[in-house]
């Protein structure tokens, strides 16, 4: 019976890993909505959600239930298939990036070594860019298929914003890649863990700053949430959506936020590295779990910063957004790249 001679054990291992990672991303995103409301309330001196369960901890469940039971409305003049495809694509592209993130080192169960990463591919970061550039389609298709001029305008805004900021993001990463010499996220993490080597943020502070601003823009988060500027565009690209399709759009934003936090932690803040501890001296299984915990803590800190910025800064005007992207961030990233190249050529060669 070698009709389907797959390596079933590997396939099942990876499937289980994928299921676990997607579940975790969903749960984190779910509680990020709760966290966002609590953070907002805290900053505005309010209480925030506190009715469902102790401290309102069941609020995300209640919100999800509400969205599921809402009436499903598909506008008559819309393109039905694309109207449904839009939120699905938004969700799919938000999830796909998690495949190449090293969530931890290795687990040893018996004599089987399980890597806590779905795929350690040679071109890790480029894959992230590929998926991010796909992320435009969810917004664009959703906005266009609604057949509503506000949605279309918001979708075009969102798409051009994502395309513009992708450039600065890529250039800021090139400087980092010159240092690491590898595109694989696993290698980048391991380099930062090596003794005598510090986290990349110390070598690339400007690069990190540019990357962070661009990540805010790529996630369509405030102050760059131009595609859902309610004062100009009613509700933005999801104007015509209702029920869980709306939920998917909103939810994918939180998943994107979580994933980009994890990527920033991995690239610039050592990934699953626990600061000031040499992991190789302790029990590897224990350290693997603690490493996952460390990565999660770093990611949660980033998510908090995202929220902090949202509830502190007002929204940009559209021309300001484009000026910042093209006239400030791209030149800065280029300067950063040239300086890094010169330093590497002069001192580390």
């Amino acid at each position: 019976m070698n009709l389907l001679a797959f390596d079933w054990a590997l396939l099942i291992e990876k499937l289980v890993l994928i299921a676990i990672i997607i579940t975790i991303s969903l749960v984190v995103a779910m509680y990020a909505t709760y966290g966002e409301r609590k953070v907002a309330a805290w900053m505005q001196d309010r209480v925030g959600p506190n009715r469902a369960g102790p401290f309102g901890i069941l609020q995300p469940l209640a919100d999800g239930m509400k969205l599921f039971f809402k009436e499903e409305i598909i506008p008559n003049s819309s393109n039905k298939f694309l109207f449904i495809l839009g939120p699905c694509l938004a969700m799919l592209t938000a999830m796909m990036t998690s495949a190449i993130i090293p969530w931890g080192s290795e687990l040893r169960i018996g004599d089987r070594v399980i890597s806590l990463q779905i795929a350690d591919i040679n071109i890790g970061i480029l894959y992230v860019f590929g998926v991010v550039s796909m992320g435009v389609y969810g917004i664009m298709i959703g906005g266009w298929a609604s057949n509503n001029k506000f949605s279309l305008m918001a979708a075009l805004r969102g798409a051009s914003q994502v395309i513009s900021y992708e450039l600065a993001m890529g250039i800021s990463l090139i400087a980092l890649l010159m240092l690491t010499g590898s595109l694989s996220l696993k290698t980048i993490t391991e380099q930062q863990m090596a003794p005598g080597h510090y986290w990349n943020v110390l070598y690339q502070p400007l690069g990190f700053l540019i990357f962070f601003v661009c990540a805010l823009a790529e996630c369509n988060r405030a102050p760059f949430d131009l595609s859902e500027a309610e004062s100009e565009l009613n509700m933005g690209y999801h104007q015509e959506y209702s029920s869980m399709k709306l939920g998917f759009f909103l939810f994918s934003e939180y998943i994107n936020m979580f994933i980009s936090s994890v990527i920033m932690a991995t690239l610039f803040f050592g990934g699953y590295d626990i600061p000031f501890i040499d992991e190789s001296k302790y029990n590897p299984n224990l350290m693997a779990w603690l490493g996952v915990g460390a990565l999660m803590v770093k990611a949660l800190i980033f998510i908090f910063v995202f929220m902090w910025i949202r509830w502190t800064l007002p929204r940009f005007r559209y021309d300001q957004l484009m000026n910042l992207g093209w006239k400030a961030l791209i030149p800065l990233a280029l300067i950063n790249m040239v300086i890094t190249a010169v330093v590497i050529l002069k001192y580390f060669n």
Partner: protein
Amino acid sequence: MGILQFLFWLLSAVALTGAIMVLASKNPVHSVLWLIVVFFAISGHYVLLNAQFLAVVNLIVYAGAIMVLFLFVIMLMNLNTVIETRKNLWMKAAGIISGGILFLIMISVVRSSADMVSRTAQLKEGSIGLIETLGKVLFTQYVVPFEISSVLFLSAMVGAVVIGKKD
């Protein structure tokens, strides 16, 4: 049938279905989306050949950038209403015949080329498509064409800015 063969047939089927649907669907937006499916399938083939860099660049450049611009244009030109362009039968027949002949020529070239005869594709091995090899080749053996093409890109960018600028 190992997993590689299975994936090969699956990706081929997806690519061919997508390509046919690009031509067959009446709504231009659907055509663009099917074309993106084709690009995904082709990238999958690149991955099978261990050309990971080519695979992902194909996705970033074609599916991620060029197709987005196509979508922009189609959405703004409002081609939503299906326009039935009626071509006469002779035109259709001529198109089918000339396309078919081109197809035959390509098949015969591939089948009889000295580089191809009695060779099989190397799946999952070889480093020719990896970013390191590619970078080294580009900056040593092909450095002059590479730099010239970058000048070409720059002039295209300047041209685009000039055209896009009002008055």
